[in-house]
């Protein structure tokens, strides 16, 4: 591979396709910075019950006390006092697409949201800055008792159910950014799938940051009742600004006995977003939790979706793709915690780094005392596409039980010259050959994506591979 070829920006095309922004059209924007007053103001604006307001204020104290993480990517550039913590885009959540304000509608039209809803989805939510501006679910599902609301609506309309589960999977003391989210959370999805209901077609949420120096802190709570199934898909983009934004979500999922939940993320934030997310699911007897996590965008991503297998027969699966281009650091991975006998888990991670990017896998397999006959396999493969990029693998394994079978394998390599040569000798040019090899590399995960995302992912990879092989 020659390096003399001019290098294309890995994320070329982002600015045109996603990097635009609307004129500021918010109805309310908190002042910059974070203190008790701001948190109280957010709570007041939302007209929340007192317990939530107290919860937020308590979380703020925890956030202030906790030090920044001493490991992982460099987050020292985040200026917590320069961020707008709450930007309310409209006065009300729209019930129909026509009611969404025109400029926002234009944005989501550009991103193809309404089209996707009609074609592929059971329900759609769209969040713009701090609030969900549109939410819709198929009537059939609504009649079956499926709830698909913004998290704020969830609290308003189903307080008892909400309160029973909120903060139980990820307490605000979990980590600094979970505490931050707990104090200023806004928007996100609240999903409840009743016993035995199968939501065959995915529910989707789309997250968009528009305002400069904005922090988005959506909160998602998903409860899948016994024997039910749901597939939730989220996508995210933001305008390309010269200053940095912060996205720090908390996602809590409860998968009851025999149920199955799949959570797919296609993270495509612009390169000025710090993406620091805490995602965790608890899976009970014979339940299955699957995370499909694609990280393409952002400046720094720290995200390790986790599955706690609480009862026998629970199964956790994490499929993770990270693509790091110029100036990007994808610190992705996953955690599986075996708390009960006969639980099983599988992690597959594929990371690609290019143009000086840094992609990595950081993971944990933990088998607690008593979790006998647990099985776990972890496979991490990394592809480094040029001499200036970097790949890291940090798998942690903590095993407190002897009757278990735990395996981890990782490889790091470049695209093989023989592979390129083989394809070239069949008349395929070098660029195409490299793109084909990369597509093949991530194929095990892409095939798990909903069709339109798989197509999009392959297209993105192809775009990013252009001109990359000399």
């Amino acid at each position, binding site marked *: 591979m020659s390096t003399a070829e001019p290098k294309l920006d890995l994320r070329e095309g982002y600015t045109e396709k996603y990097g635009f922004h609307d004129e500021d059209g918010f109805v309310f924007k908190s002042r910059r910075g974070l203190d008790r007053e701001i948190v109280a103001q957010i709570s007041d604006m939302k007209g929340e019950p007192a317990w939530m307001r107290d919860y937020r204020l308590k979380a703020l104290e925890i956030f202030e006390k906790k030090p920044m993480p001493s490991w992982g990517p460099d987050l020292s550039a985040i200026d917590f006092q320069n961020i707008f913590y709450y930007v309310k885009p409209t006065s009300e959540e729209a019930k129909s697409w026509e009611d969404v304000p025109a400029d926002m509608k234009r944005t989501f039209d550009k991103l193809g949201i309404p089209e996707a809803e009609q074609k592929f989805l059971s329900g759609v939510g769209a969040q713009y800055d701090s609030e969900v501006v549109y939410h819709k679910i198929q009537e059939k599902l609504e009649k079956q008792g499926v709830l698909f609301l913004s998290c704020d609506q969830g609290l308003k309309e189903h307080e008892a159910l909400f309160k029973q589960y909120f903060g139980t999977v990820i307490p605000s003391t979990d980590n600094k950014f979970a505490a931050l989210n707990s104090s200023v959370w806004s928007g996100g999805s609240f999903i409840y799938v009743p016993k035995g209901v199968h939501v065959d077609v995915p529910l989707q949420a789309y997250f968009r940051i528009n305002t400069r120096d904005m922090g988005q802190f959506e909160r998602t709570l998903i409860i899948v009742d016994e024997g039910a199934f749901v597939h939730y898909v989220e996508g995210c983009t933001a305008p390309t600004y010269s200053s940095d934004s912060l996205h720090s979500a908390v996602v809590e999922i409860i998968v009851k006995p025999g149920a199955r939940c799949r959570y797919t993320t296609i993270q495509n934030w612009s390169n000025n977003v710090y993406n620091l997310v805490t995602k965790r699911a608890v899976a009970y007897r014979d339940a299955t939790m699957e995370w499909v996590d694609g990280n393409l965008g952002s400046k720094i991503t720290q995200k390790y979706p986790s599955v706690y297998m609480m009862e026998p027969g629970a199964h956790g699966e994490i499929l993770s793709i990270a693509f790091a281009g110029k100036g990007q650091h994808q610190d992705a991975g996953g955690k599986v915690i075996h708390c009960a006998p006969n639980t099983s888990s599988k992690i597959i991670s594929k990371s690609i780094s290019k143009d000086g990017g840094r992609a990595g896998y950081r993971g944990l397999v933990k088998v607690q005392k008593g979790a006998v006959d647990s099985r776990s396999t972890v496979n991490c493969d990394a592809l480094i596409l*040029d001499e200036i990029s970097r790949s*890291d*693998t940090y798998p942690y*394994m903590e095993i407190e039980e002897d009757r278990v079978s735990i395996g981890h394998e990782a490889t*790091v390599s470049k695209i093989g010259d023989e592979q390129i040569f083989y394809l070239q000798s069949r008349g395929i040019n070098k660029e195409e050959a490299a793109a084909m090899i990369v597509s093949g590399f991530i194929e095990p995960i892409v095939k798990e994506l909903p069709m339109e995302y798989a197509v999009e992912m392959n297209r993105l990879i192809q775009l990013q591979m252009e001109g990359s092989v000399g």
Partner: protein
Amino acid sequence: MTTATAVPTISTFPGLDAWATGALERAGKANEPAWAVEQRRAAAGTARALGFPARDHELWRRIDFRTLEQAFGALDPFREGPVTRNLDDLPGALLERLGSETGRVGLVIQRNAGAVVEQTAPELAKQGVIVCSLDHALARHGDKLRERLGSLITPDYDGYAALGAALRSGGAFVYVPDGVEAALPIRLFDWIDGAGVLAAPRTVIVLGKGARATVVHEQLSDTTEGIAFHLGGTELFLGEDSKLVYGTLQEWGRHVYHYSNQRAQVARGAELQWIQTILGGRMVKTNSYYNLVGPGAQAFVHGFMFGDQRQQFHLHTLQRHLADHCTSDLLIKGCLKDRARSIYQGLIQVAEGAQRTDAYQANRNLLLSDTARADSIPGLEILANDVRCTHGATIGTVDPEQVYYLMARGLPRAEAQRLIVEGFFAPVIDRIPLEGIRDHLRQVIQWKLG
């Protein structure tokens, strides 16, 4: 992430000033060269600034040395070994290990805080091979040590490393000149008598261009009440195209806390074969770094640990590829019974430009009881693209099918398990250079299995 970083102070070493002064006096009496005395003085300052490693430090949060830290004030860093006129004055266990080879090896025996026996066999002396205590080497071969001692284990690595450099007590020096293949194996011993000892020996081994040698370093003691502390350091320098086979076999009594830093610098075309076994001690922590600094350098590392009762072992290894076309292959096997615990924390680092790297790292763990615990943290940090790096880790129990197979052939369960465990360790034991030691290790495994 896991490389040398100064760790914040949590508490200072009690009695450090008196110890440091004592160490300087001792160095004066031994006629240490001025630069070595200055090294001690500077290290004492660093030790004062760093103190005990912080509990939340990545390399310290999984092992708890607090019992040792609380007993620290009662340790004596200057306890000499008893007068040794000839080998008969040595402890029986040590003599037994030495076997009939006494006349046919280069030998340095360290007892507590000083060397008591040092001999270069005539065959080795004729070749110009130096085998002596580090104290003598400083007095006689200072020029060979000046650029090397403390160059790979720097005092700012952590508080213990600094303390060890300030209190340095004994150790061994091995030097094999250019083009010489040492005619005899070289054996180094560390022995600790009873509780209250703080031994801080430093070992330096230097192989010239094209030189070859086999060095076996054994650490053992009886078990007594109380606490003793081995704070060791080993620096290996492999010249171009040289080859060193180095075995470290640790079988301390159960009162010994062990913390050691081991560093190897491997030049162009040189080959290091390192075999490490960890069987004894109450708590054991080792940091082993393999720096491949010249093109084509190779490091092959094979280690095993077998913990029982409440033993805790923490191994940290770093395969550092700093030049192109280097190979490193590391295999660490661990077997744990009772309430023993092991932590393996390994990292492969490939520097920018270290193309054509071939690096492999494997950690295999066998748990023999449901109260044993193994953590495995293999890592990769890769900054070059034309590389082949893989690592693997497994944790499991004795395969019931294998046990069943053997039992079906008339073996009792315990015997079947012993065979399987022995088979598990065989690939490592087979690499140990001396037959007597291989037999001994098989016995220890059998004895540990009970």
